[in-house]
């Protein structure tokens, strides 16, 4: 039917959406390769759902085009697009049985003998014995699986998932993430998944596009985004980052910066901007990359590591690790996660400590941006 090699890519070119004077999505170019699990990640109102709906045909783009493979579908109504959606609210038909819900798409395309396919699909989502029930007789997780089955049975070129796990409790959500990932690997259909949950996006997707204010901030593999954020929004939205404002002392393959008298080093390759001597730079490090020792043991730290002194302001024990908040002249509220292998009794609030980490683990960001971008949204969704 469709060319399996290159034909199935989703291509958005210059696509945008305005509502009156409000711009939900700024002109956007995006190519989603055939067979990939692609996540659109962002806080609510960032334009991710609007983008998804434009692919589905439920929203008409103000500018730009949507291509599925070589075929332009920008002006096609939803019922003519080889695309299916799993809605946030599932939108199961309350008057139809689970069987008829799943058979809906097949019947609309004039397929008469649906029994075999529907039964197979019910088995895939492990709901065989519920075929004759009505949606309201099923639990949230079961309804969610029906919604997936109802879309997948049509073998769409692209399956769109609009926060499909948002209504489930945490444990069920983890379970369904693995389930969806398993199904995607099994059927090999392109999945485009919209979510505000960064962990969900990173666990499931091959490629994540982080959206903010109607634009894609950064796009890449989850590990790539996490290790090398290019904007403060991505640094703060994906996990937690310690961002330190510093001035560049010398630029070269090894950048030397100073912040409140403390000298730090980082590789130029890990800077999203070209550092200039005398210029500003935001220096970032992830809390789990940092080690913590009492101030008395400063001498034991290997040379060449980045060091910051400070005092423990707060600590919280969360089982696998202990999270510390450190007050330092360099930066208030530095976060450090220490694995609970051997717990050091001296690391208590009020203790003077030294933070140290491998300069290779440091990244640099353009200082011309809001250092706190993306922070509130993380707390809201957590």
């Amino acid at each position, binding site marked *: 039917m469709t060319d399996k090699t290159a034909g199935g890519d989703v291509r958005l070119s210059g696509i945008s959406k305005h509502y009156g004077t409000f711009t939900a999505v700024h002109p956007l170019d995006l190519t989603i390769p055939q067979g990939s699990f692609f996540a659109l990640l962002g806080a609510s109102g960032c334009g991710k759902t609007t983008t998804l709906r434009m692919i*589905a*045909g*439920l929203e008409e783009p103000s500018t730009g085009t949507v291509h599925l493979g070589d075929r332009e579908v920008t002006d096609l*109504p*939803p*019922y*003519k697009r080889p*695309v*299916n*959606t799993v*809605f946030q*609210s599932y*939108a*199961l*038909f*309350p*008057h139809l049985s689970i069987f008829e819900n799943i058979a*809906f*798409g097949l019947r*609309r*395309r004039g397929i008469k003998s649906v029994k075999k396919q529907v039964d197979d699909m019910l088995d895939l989502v492990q709901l065989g014995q519920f075929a004759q029930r009505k949606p309201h007789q099923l639990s949230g997780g079961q309804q969610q699986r029906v919604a997936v089955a*109802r*879309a997948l049975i*049509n073998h769409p070129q692209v399956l769109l998932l609009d926060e499909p796990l948002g209504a489930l409790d945490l444990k069920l959500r983890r379970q369904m993430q693995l389930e969806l990932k398993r199904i995607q690997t099994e059927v090999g259909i392109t999945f485009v998944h919209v979510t505000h949950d960064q962990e969900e996006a990173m666990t499931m997707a091959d490629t994540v596009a982080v959206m903010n204010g109607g634009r894609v901030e950064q796009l890449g593999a989850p590990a790539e985004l996490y290790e090398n954020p290019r904007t403060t929004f991505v640094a703060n939205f994906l996990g937690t980052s310690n961002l330190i404002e510093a001035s560049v002392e010398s630029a070269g393959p090894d950048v030397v910066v100073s912040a409140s008298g403390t000298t730090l080093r980082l590789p130029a390759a890990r800077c999203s901007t070209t550092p200039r001597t005398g210029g500003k730079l935001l220096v970032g490090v992830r809390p789990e990359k940092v080690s913590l020792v009492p101030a008395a043991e400063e001498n034991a730290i290997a040379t060449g590591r980045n060091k910051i002194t400070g005092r423990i302001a707060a600590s919280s024990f969360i089982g696998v690790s202990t999270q510390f908040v450190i007050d330092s002249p360099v930066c208030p509220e530095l976060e450090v996660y220490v694995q609970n292998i051997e717990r050091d009794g001296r690391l208590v609030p009020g203790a003077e400590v030294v933070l140290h980490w491998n300069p290779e683990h440091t990244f640099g960001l353009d200082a011309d941006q809001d250092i706190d971008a993306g922070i509130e949204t993380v707390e809201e969704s957590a």
Partner: protein
Amino acid sequence: MTATAAPPQAPAPTEPPVHKPSVRKRLVPYWLLLPGILWLLVFFVLPMVYQASTSVQTGSLEEGFEVTWHFQTYWDAFTEYLPQFLRSLLYAGTATALCLLLGYPLAYLIAFKAGRWRNLLLVLVIAPFFTSFLIRTLAWKTILADGGPVVAGLNAIGFLDVTSWLGMTEGDRVLATPLAVVCGLTYNFLPFMILPLYSSLERIDTRLHEAAGDLYARPATVFRKVTFPLSMPGVVSGTLLTFIPASGDYVNAELLGSTDTRMIGNVIQSQYLRILDYPTAAALSFILMAIVLIMVTIYIRRAGTEDLV
């Protein structure tokens, strides 16, 4: 027996006694029911019993009526006024169908497309109720008057030829024909169709329309397979609220019809108020009630609304 009444040295009771509501508290729901029950008793049950007894009486106004268990009245009334019964059901049925045809698109528009005009349109739907039923029906007399613009217009487009062929009008008159009565019924009961339709359409999650469209249903199919089935509770209650009162109505036939368009309501009214044959009038009322009850029961069974809640 509550715990507070138990002697202090008694062993701890096995069940926690604090949750047992007092007798007074348990009676509260029944006290709240009382006004409604009294109302039904006085204004529904008693008149029904009285009418039932009237229907099996014989006698005359001069000599007085007496209960003689004369059930023959029912059969006589039924056979004598069968044409009026059939006419009532036919007119009410036609008016109900017309109400559904006119009301559904309007209810759909208000529920899904009206946006900020929604409330205004709803007010307009019930606006006629601000005027008396009689006055509104009399106004139709003027609207459908012979030689009036409406009749002239209907005549010009050949509409009256069609209705006349159907036996609903005669010549170039509309007033005093079945069409006029059906028009009046349709007009007067239309809001009773629109409001339940609206309330059941309005509850439909529009994302279901999107989902159906996403699953290859074109707009007409979305309506047939999703919207309409989900609006069935509204269709059923709308048709009942229209059909039941329309089948017993006599005002429209009285004001807009002629002696050839008399409905069963007109017969009952004249038996009561002009001929003063109370037993026949009461028997006719019970027959009408029984017919409507049977039809409604069959209809609800067929429509299967209990499945749609």
